[in-house]
């Protein structure tokens, strides 16, 4: 029944106008949002907590203080910093797939003793009420001074030193944490085994 008087070109024209309007709207919406600068602040605060460092609360001062303690080694999805005071301590921010979206973890690793010093979740989008409990203090505590010579392992009930309790009902999230940490550990091993280069001051908060 539909009339064919209006051709393909007009239809395409309409679609393109619509697409342009949508694209402009998208860009405006994206530009209107503040940057995610606060996120790196979370990382710095977490680093302070893990390594028991007193970092100032004011962002600029905190970044400066952080740079006094750590030097950046790699960037990308797995970022590494080496401690300037204790060269066997590495700080690692690792990103990986969580259950729904990416999650980012920050942990400190003692390369000489092969132990994780502490771990914090910086960014996560896990199921509210289940998976997001990886952000709780009780979950962090398991990683304090954890043996990680042969990687960490998720278990329903922890028996060995390198194991941590899976959160009941959130197996996928727990396994994601396991995968992300183990992948990052492998990376640290590779970089740390190579002779640590001279401290080039390249700061990246």
């Amino acid at each position: 029944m539909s009339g064919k008087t209006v051709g393909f070109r007009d239809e395409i024209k309409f679609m393109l106008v619509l697409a342009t309007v949508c694209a402009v709207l998208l860009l405006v919406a994206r530009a209107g949002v503040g940057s995610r600068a606060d996120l790196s602040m979370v990382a710095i605060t977490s680093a302070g907590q893990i390594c028991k460092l007193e970092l100032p609360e004011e962002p600029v001062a905190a970044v400066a203080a952080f740079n006094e303690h750590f030097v950046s080694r790699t960037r990308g999805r797995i970022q590494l910093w080496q401690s300037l005071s204790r060269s066997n301590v590495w700080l690692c921010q690792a990103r990986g797939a969580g259950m729904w979206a990416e999650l980012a973890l920050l942990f400190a690793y003692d390369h000489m003793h092969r132990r994780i010093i502490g771990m914090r979740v910086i960014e996560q989008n896990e199921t509210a009420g289940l998976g997001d409990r990886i952000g709780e203090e009780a979950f962090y505590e398991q990683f304090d001074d954890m043996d990680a010579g042969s990687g960490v392992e998720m278990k329903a009930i922890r028996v060995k030193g390198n194991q941590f309790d899976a959160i009941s009902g959130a197996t996928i999230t727990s396994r994601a944490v396991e995968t992300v940490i183990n992948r990052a550990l492998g990376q640290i091993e590779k970089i740390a085994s190579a002779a640590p280069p001279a401290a080039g001051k390249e700061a990246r908060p």
Partner: protein
Amino acid sequence: MKYLRILWEGLIPNNPVFILALGLCSTLAVTLKVENAFFMAVMVGITTIFSSVCVAALRYYIPFRFRLLSYMLIIVTAVIAVEQLLKALFPEVARALGPYVGLIVTNCVVMGRLEAFAVSHRPLEAFFDALGVALGYAAVLLSIASIREFLGNGTLWGLHVAPDFYIPCRVFNSPPGAFIVFAALLFAVNWLRSIVRRDS
């Protein structure tokens, strides 16, 4: 008056979740905490209203064979814009809702209202219909979330409200719990409806 009726139609007699069985995915998935459910409902509401009004205004210009593509384009724009807004205003909530915000795109409540109502009505009518449906959706979401959060955690909007002797029943935090609460609530609603119908 007429607009109020359209609003009412969407809210109760055509409730998107209980009566039309639309938008079940998010109804079940984000109802662990009342707070999340609330923001989810608000965002779905904004998306529904925006896309309904847009489609109603463009209803004679949207080419029939590219209908699906145009609808999706409009919905995605609304969703991404709302998502960015939420990130700017309530970063905490945006983190908690994360993945489900993107999945609003495929929430059938939005698409369902476009196909069933907005394409054949004027923008103002579409606005009220979308508003009614959004309110109906919010009502369901909030009631399920309250029940689940109370039974599963003993809290409401993060506040501890359950008596001390109550031991939270974790099954309501898990997927099957959502199904069970939904079925129970559906039973209650249908029962009430039948009573109302008998009385009138």
